[in-house]
């Protein structure tokens, strides 16, 4: 299978020939040809301004009664008695989608000894129904118990859309839910919308954030997506009312082959990279490990986390759990301060989704300035203490 050319529309302009990453498109005089090298990546389709290129469609598989599925669901992530912020973000985003589609919004809470206040909080953010499954086996997260419970609930109630946060929990067990339900799943979306036909348009970065792709799941239900935290805004719906439904599921749902031996919560706040609103990162420009105290001081003032470039981790200045980038963590805080790091692409792909990026580097040519909201060309050993002084003054600490 390969991309389809409409020769009536094709003007043989050749733009797609250069775009194809696999060199699968050639122009034979005035006839465009696509070879077997085509991987159906879709890159050419969007570049053709004449609409001459298209992708073959996914198979429809066995018949699924799409109309039997109704309503939008948000998996509400329960942790230590609270609901993860991303779940409120998704309930808020789900409310808008539900209104656009004219359907109901439900939140699903799995856990043990669930606090009724949490249900009301989900309703206040726009949920019409909160489904709660309370069971001792759900006290600790395990992929098997969580996915079996959510899949069983979905089989019974048949939602048309199911959203979850792209957290370490969501990205771990939601693929199993999708596989149990034999449906499609799109990971780590940053944008959701409804098409005119009522399909969920799931947009996400790919190739390390260098391209964006919009994905649909046309023939299976529910349409499932995990959504990156901090992308959607939380918004309460004043006076919104909803109901709570406690659901009992068969005991077999809660069986798991996995035994949780230990749960060690990270006590070092500066290591909680994915949750942090602010991350201050250092690179090789710090010259030695001890100088990370400068980074830690700034991070502390912002109540933020400490990140590090691959170089700084390789030097042994920071443990790998602090590494931001391609082989480390992908983060998208409100503020990312990059100090003394050049901005190698493998670092940039791990943080370019941040809302505000501040770069501090003495080399004005450093690539980090290409993506920085605010660039400070300065010697970090002079600038960082000046910034610390200014913040302390304002906070009344100095």
């Amino acid at each position: 299978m390969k991309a389809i050319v409409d020769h009536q529309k094709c003007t043989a302009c050749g733009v797609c020939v250069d775009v194809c990453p696999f060199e699968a498109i050639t122009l034979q005089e005035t006839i465009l040809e696509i070879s077997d090298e085509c991987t159906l990546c879709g890159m050419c389709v969007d570049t053709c301004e004449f609409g001459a290129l298209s992708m073959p469609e996914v198979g429809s598989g066995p018949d699924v009664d799409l109309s039997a599925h109704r309503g939008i669901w948000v998996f509400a992530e329960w942790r230590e008695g609270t609901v993860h912020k991303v779940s409120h973000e998704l309930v808020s985003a789900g409310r808008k989608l539900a209104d656009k589609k004219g359907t109901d919004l439900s939140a699903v809470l799995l856990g043990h000894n669930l606090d009724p206040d949490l249900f009301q909080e989900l309703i206040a953010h726009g949920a019409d129904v909160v489904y709660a499954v309370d069971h001792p086996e759900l006290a600790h997260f395990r992929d098997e118990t969580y996915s079996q419970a959510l899949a069983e609930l979905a089989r019974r109630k048949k939602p048309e859309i199911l959203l979850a946060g792209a957290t370490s929990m969501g990205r771990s067990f939601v693929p199993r839910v999708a596989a149990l339900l034999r449906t499609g799943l799109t990971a780590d979306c940053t944008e959701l919308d409804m098409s005119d036909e009522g399909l969920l348009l799931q947009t996400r970065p790919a190739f390390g954030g260098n391209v964006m792709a919009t994905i649909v799941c046309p023939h299976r239900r529910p349409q499932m997506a995990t959504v990156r935290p901090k992308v959607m805004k939380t918004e309460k719906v004043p006076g919104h009312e909803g109901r709570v439904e406690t659901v009992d599921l068969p005991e077999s749902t809660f069986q798991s082959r996995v035994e949780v031996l230990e749960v060690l919560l990270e006590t070092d706040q500066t290591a909680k990279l994915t949750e942090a609103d602010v991350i201050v990162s250092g690179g090789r420009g710090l010259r030695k490990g001890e100088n990370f105290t400068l980074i830690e001081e700034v991070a502390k003032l912002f109540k933020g986390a400490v990140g590090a470039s691959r170089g700084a981790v390789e030097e042994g200045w920071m443990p790998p759990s602090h590494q931001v980038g391609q082989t480390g963590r992908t983060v998208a805080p409100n503020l990312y301060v990059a100090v003394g790091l050049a901005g190698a692409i493998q670092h940039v792909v791990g943080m370019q989704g941040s809302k505000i990026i501040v770069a501090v580097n003495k080399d004005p040519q450093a690539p980090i300035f290409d993506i920085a909201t605010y660039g400070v060309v300065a010697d970090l050993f002079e600038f960082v203490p000046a910034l610390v002084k200014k913040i302390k003054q304002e906070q009344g600490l100095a």
Partner: protein
Amino acid sequence: MHIVVCIKQVPDTKNVRIDPDTHTLVRQGVESIVNPFDLFAVEAALKLKDVNEAKITVITMGPPQASEALRDVMSRGVDEAILLSDRAFAGSDTWATSTTLAAAVRKMGDVDLILCGKQAIDGDTAQVGPEMATLLDIPYATFVKAIDIPDTSHLKVSRQTDEGTEVWKIPKPCLLTVIKEVGEPRLPSLRHKMRAKKAQIPSWGIAELGLEPEEVGLSGSFTQVVRVFSPPVRDDRVIIEGTVAEQAEQLYNLLKEAKVPGI
């Protein structure tokens, strides 16, 4: 112990860029590499083999040239490699990919442990491991940073979560997706390089895997890409000038204006 490592050949993301003028993908200098996370999976397998009796088989789904990726990891000490290649696999989403890889594991039969990288750097989905484990009906653990063998039938794994670390006991056969902390990939050795170069790598298509064309590739996929486009360009960039004290003051004011938490 038979360990299967799943790898993917990916374009080196650091060279994939959108031309800011033409808004097209610049392919010049884009090389194919072994997905970096999969090299951690290879390393985890080799570490287990260092201290246990084990055979390591590496598999990949891809075009014929993906055998280069297989030879790369063989040169690091992996015993055997199998290429899963068929025109029918084109356009696979994570579901169709998982279906194909799971069929290969079933055909091998005697598998105790499947190792995958956390995710591939081109798609970043992190879905193939868990979906494959579900299809094979075996337990799995994601984001694994350390693996121990407490007894003959179980593994003890530490997994990195957003909140900290979890230690799980998981029975074999199982699937693990691993992160950097399992260990830096070892370099190819001359001996293994020679062996990798000469190795006959079998290629399995749908016939060998016992799959139907409609189960794989785009036909067997549930999701479809409808649009690929360049991310919006950030045009709000400001370079802050002045002495360091002035720069610090300006930055502070800008961050305060933007209502950055903590200020």
